[in-house]
């Protein structure tokens, strides 16, 4: 025995190697399809059945309910800046939201550096979009849609800090690209991403001209958006015939030559930003996608073993590349695996990935391709039979705290910094990979501490401006003793069977040296219950799913 083992043995017997018990399959499913399973959702599923609930979630309507409308209409966001010469006066106000759903025409001028404007005015669209993302995650009835929106934002990641043009156009990316396609057809989705202002600037395609083309977008298209790096044969470089399947027109993966050729195919795909294109001509200045034929490399190409003839019509080369990668079986596998990892486990079960891949391929021309794939995943047996393989993402963790406690929630810009302490960079992950979807990434001493402190801040700090937690308003009047109150909140937050020891620990914590059967006064409840509720959200049972 080593000294370490010797010291470890000093732990009392009953505390060793405790395993957590899972919630019911229903609760597991609801937690995975949402930002936190609530009592209301459980009641709904109890009356209609899980399949009917899944079906309704797969058909979200544009109506997000009165609650959301009220929240958005009453939301304000603080804005403050100093005056600058004669350009603009100082400002310090709480301003209602007006840009999160604004038109391109209204947003684009904010990126024009020639117009004098304070920095906070330019970052307003991004800040507002974050507020809206919070409101939707916490209050939207279409929870599955919201989780898919986050998935696709992460998959087609852009970093709002990389370029002001990305930042001001992010509401358009969110609305007209991500939300529009989140349950739709992948091929269409891919083209909307490729032509979006945000992605065009993020991966530099907007400045890519014939010879040499900028390969950034093309590389990430293969490596991250579609086939995935697992299907990259870097050792073959330019020996395309050696990729298995290539000579019969069906290479199983890609090589560098494919990236270079695809980059040539996307030359001329740019954004109309008023740039001077020579001979006294300027592009229009609308901020929208523009095909500039003068920049396109129109000679023959070969991508994934398929020959492209020279001098194709406008946009044809790029669209053909998008067809090739969107319909490639490796793409189906790569994305279905990511979806299963997101929704089931860090190590998703092979047969669900396989089944989802088949559904994906079968529906590749279907307008509801992603919806059909999601239905398969959500209805698979494995979807809710395992538990505890995933740690809640920070954004999800906070939203689930607010949903299960029914806090009145007023999101503010300060949340972004809190998320970053837990390793989550809201619309600001620096690289095109998006956040890692693995618990090893989310768990560190520092982020664990941040997870705990945030719970205490939101639920027990009465001076915080984000939440108002009225714990007594939820508790039925007949619940009065420490043991009753602890049991009530455990059920409200964890919704699963717990061990007698766990119940005892929570009860003792709440009772704070009083007898556990004694009733607590309203003052004691207001003082102690928020700490108990915070503590419950800090337990592993709440942090994992």
């Amino acid at each position, binding site marked *: 025995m080593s000294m370490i083992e010797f010291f470890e043995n*000093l732990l009392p017997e009953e505390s060793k190697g405790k395993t957590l018990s899972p919630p019911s399959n229903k609760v597991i499913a609801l937690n995975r399809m949402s930002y936190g399973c609530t009592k209301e959702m459980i009641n709904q599923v109890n009356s209609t059945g899980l399949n009917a609930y899944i079906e309704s979630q797969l058909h979200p309507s544009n109506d997000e309910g009165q609650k959301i409308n009220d929240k958005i209409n009453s939301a304000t966001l603080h804005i403050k800046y100093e005056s600058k010469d004669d350009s603009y006066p100082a400002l310090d106000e709480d301003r209602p939201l007006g840009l999160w759903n604004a038109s391109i025409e209204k947003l684009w001028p904010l990126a024009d550096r020639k117009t004098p404007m304070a920095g906070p005015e330019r970052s307003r669209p991004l800040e507002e979009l974050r507020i809206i993302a919070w409101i939707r995650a916490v209050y939207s009835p279409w929870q599955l849609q919201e989780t898919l929106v986050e998935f696709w934002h992460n998959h087609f990641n852009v970093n709002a800090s*990389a370029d002001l043009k990305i930042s001001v156009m992010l509401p358009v990316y969110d609305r007209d690209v991500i939300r529009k396609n989140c349950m739709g057809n992948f091929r269409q989705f891919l083209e909307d991403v490729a032509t979006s202002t945000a992605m065009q600037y993020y991966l530099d395609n907007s400045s890519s001209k014939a010879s040499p083309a900028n390969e950034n977008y093309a590389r990430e298209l293969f490596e991250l958006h579609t086939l995935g*790096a697992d299907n990259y044969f870097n050792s073959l470089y330019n020996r395309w015939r050696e990729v298995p399947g290539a000579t019969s027109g069906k290479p199983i993966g890609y090589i560098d030559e494919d990236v270079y050729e695809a980059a040539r195919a996307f030359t001329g795909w740019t954004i109309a930003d008023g740039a001077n294109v020579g001979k006294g001509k300027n592009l229009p200045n609308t901020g929208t996608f523009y095909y500039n034929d003068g920049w396109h490399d129109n000679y023959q190409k070969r991508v994934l073993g398929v020959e492209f003839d020279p001098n194709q019509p406008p946009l044809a080369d790029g669209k053909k590349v998008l067809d090739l990668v969107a319909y490639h079986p490796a793409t189906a596998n790569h994305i279905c695996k990511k979806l299963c990892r997101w929704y089931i486990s860090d190590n998703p079960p092979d047969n669900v990935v396989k089944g989802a891949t088949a559904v994906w391929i079968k529906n590749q021309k279907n307008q509801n391709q992603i919806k059909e794939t999601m239905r398969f995943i959500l209805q698979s047996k494995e979807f809710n039979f395992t538990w505890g393989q995933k740690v809640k993402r920070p954004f999800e963790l906070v939203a689930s705290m607010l949903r299960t406690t029914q806090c009145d929630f007023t999101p503010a810009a300060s949340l972004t910094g809190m998320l970053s302490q837990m390793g989550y960079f809201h619309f600001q992950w620096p*690289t095109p990979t998006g956040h890692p979807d693995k618990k090893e990434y989310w*768990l560190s001493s520092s*982020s664990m501490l941040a997870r705990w402190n945030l719970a205490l801040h939101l639920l027990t700090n009465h001076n915080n401006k984000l939440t108002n937690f009225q714990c007594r308003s939820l508790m039925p009047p007949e619940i009065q003793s420490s043991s009753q109150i602890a049991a009530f909140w455990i059920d409200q937050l964890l919704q699963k069977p717990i061990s007698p020891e766990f119940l005892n620990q929570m009860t003792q*914590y709440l009772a704070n040296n009083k007898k556990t059967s004694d009733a607590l006064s309203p003052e004691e409840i207001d003082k102690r219950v928020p700490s108990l509720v915070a503590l419950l959200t800090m337990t*592993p049972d709440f942090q994992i799913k």
Partner: protein
Amino acid sequence: MIGCSASIAAMAGSRITSFGFSPNESGEIFVYVFLRGGCDGLNLVGPVNDPSYIAERPPELRLTDSDDGQGLRLDNGFNGLDFRLHPKAPELKELYDQQALAIIHAAGLTNGTRSHFDAQDLIERGSVNNKNLPEGWFTRYLDSIPSIDTSMMFPSVAVSSTVPASFLGSSSTLAIQNIGDYKLRGDAKLQQVLQNIYNGQNLIDKTAAEALRSIKYINDHLEKDENGKVSPYIPASNASYPDNSLARSLKTLAPSGKISDAINGAFGSFDKFKEELTKAAMGRFGSGWAWLVSHEWKLKIGSTANQDNPMMDSSELKGTPLLGIDVWEHAYYLKYQNKRNEYVANWFNTINWDEAAKRLS
């Protein structure tokens, strides 16, 4: 950064991580900075008179021995070549001249991947081809240093909200963003309940337990003023740090390196245990015994006179003896004469921990 994409350039500025730890008792600190994104090594340090270098590189990406791009000459150039540093790096040149800087050039992957992310994953894991290896190169390095008892102290600190991939699989690496604010809010009981609950073998249990343990130790060892407020870190020799993300990381790291020295000697470390027991053995005047006993699930160290032992009602030190060291002169006189300290020091090498554990249960 010419030739790098905008996103790569931004990464180098915003995603710098640095780490440090104290690998041995002399308190040496190892700091590792990983610049994500790109650094054109042959434009930072280049062999200016090498014909291939001149032929293969356009002038704006090449150092020269004359004119505007003239590099800073390094002595000891490899293979008779005139290696030079980029003219914008005179600080590195100064360190090099003081023999405080070594350059290991052109070290990298043998795997020719042109995927930035795969390349970073491989480098951080120290692997040629497995980018999913669940273990970072630093973890393997830590494990290979015998003087580090990774379970009893905090040998490594990452200045980051998350643990970098080079530390994957290391249970002894702390991620700390701001050492002065590394504490849990809420009451003391809450911390106790968390300690009781996070006791399983899952990654989340281990991480949480490590967080709780480190919170306590770090706050016990941070310098505080009379009001209990953590004193701000004042760099030695009034060094001033520039205001950028790399400098901020290094500034966070500096006091944590100093703390790790204190932690080495804190309760829970073998050194401290050794010190206490040695003190008890040396402090017993005349004949007697020094003991490690367990009493109500707590370990205690103490000594008794002559033939007394901790199981006797009359003994001040009470508990079940787990380890006992006989400091009667007859126990060591034949071999050590009057040098009790040497005897005690060597006695630690003879402990049968299995037996001690058996006595505990």
